[in-house]
């Protein structure tokens, strides 16, 4: 009786009227087969929710966020209105994804290996922290810049990574101090910088997920949860610079940080 199963599905969504809901609840108490059917639908629902949630953790191409930032609102684009975006551009986009910074993005889609998932989780956690801490004025950091020597020793030993605090003042960034975070169950050192206009840029570092010492594959740019990320690996350590979505020059900041950290 598909009709009853359909009602069970609607019951899960709270979409039945009172009479039907009461009927379902009575059946659930008296008929194990009905309860088993509900359990099966709930398992399917949990699976669907898990997979839909996982899609939110997929990185969005950084170029799109940057394009939104740079496009004036309410003005028609320079391109012809009838451009064949779905044909020719698809081929170009595919090349771009494979060849450019979107490689990580595509890799996420096509080969969700454990390391890739773990890395994505690390950055997603960092995004959550940044969303909270970047808006803090008085309590931006745990340990202020005035105690930099202590910060380096403390975070270095906790995270298990020796590092130096990069001087990013040529980008107008003032070092404010640092925090200890936890991402993917492992400690993360977070160094916070602030622009004169108050915008916060952070450099985070974490000991490599697998303790690997693979050579750095270059910088990866992604947008996760509305923030831009430029990440890289070096000597078994994962690094990322994070800033507000659409911020220009983040890759240059990351390049300098990579040299100095």
């Amino acid at each position, binding site marked *: 009786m598909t009709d009853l199963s359909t009602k069970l599905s609607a019951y899960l969504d709270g979409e039945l009227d009172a009479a039907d809901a009461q009927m379902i609840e009575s059946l659930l108490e008296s008929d194990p087969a009905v309860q088993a059917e509900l359990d099966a639908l709930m398992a399917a629902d949990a*699976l669907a929710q898990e997979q*839909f949630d996982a899609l939110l953790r997929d990185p969005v191409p950084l170029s799109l966020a940057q394009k939104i930032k740079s496009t004036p609102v309410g003005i028609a684009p320079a391109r012809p209105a009838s451009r064949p975006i779905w044909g020719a551009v698809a081929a170009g986009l595919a090349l771009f994804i494979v060849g450019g910074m979107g490689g990580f993005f595509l890799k996420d889609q096509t080969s969700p290996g454990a390391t890739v998932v773990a890395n994505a989780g690390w950055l997603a956690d960092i995004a959550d922290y940044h969303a909270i801490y970047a808006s803090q004025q008085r309590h931006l950091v745990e340990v202020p810049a005035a105690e930099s020597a202590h910060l380096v020793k403390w975070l270095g030993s906790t995270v298990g990574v020796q590092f130096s605090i990069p001087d990013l003042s040529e980008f107008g960034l003032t070092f404010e101090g640092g925090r200890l975070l936890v991402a993917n169950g492992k400690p993360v050192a977070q160094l916070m910088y602030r622009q004169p206009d108050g915008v916060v840029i952070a450099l985070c570092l974490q000991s490599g997920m697998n303790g690997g010492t693979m050579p750095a594959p270059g910088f990866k740019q992604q947008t996760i*949860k509305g923030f831009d990320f430029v990440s890289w690996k070096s000597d078994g350590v994962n690094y990322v610079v994070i800033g507000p979505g659409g911020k220009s020059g983040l890759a240059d900041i990351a390049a300098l940080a990579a040299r100095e950290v």
Partner: protein
Amino acid sequence: MTTAEKFKIEMIGLLPRLRRFALSLTRSVPDADDLLQDACTTALQRWHQYDPAQPLDRWMFRIIRNLWISEIRKRKVREGQGQVPAEEATELQTADADDTLNAKQVQARVSALPPDLAQPLMLVCAEGYSYREVSEFLDIPVGTVMSRIHRARKLLASALGHEEGIAT
């Protein structure tokens, strides 16, 4: 910060959800990213039409969906025949899903669901829409929303190895 800048920042923050929505329509990552980019461009052009009292996500969902329907129509013209847009989904597609269910060829993935089943399921399960809201958004009867969500769950449950139970 100007209103336009806030609009952009909110749009950037929505990108993961907008992309998920686009994927539920296209079932293809390159198509979804192309669609998302075009939708953002369209939204920025039509910014003056946006009512800030309304949720931006739903306004963007509508733009994405309209662009995709337009694209599907173009493809049908180009290819002579093609995919059927979600809002034109018929019982035949549901019957196809039944056939697939019976053949037990569906993997337990939402990405393996037909778009006309995946869309209402995503809107209810992930976006918290009511059946009535999905009905209005997709322009299909509430009863169809209910049956498609049920069918989607049954396909997934079957792929998970649950017996057909009382629904056969």
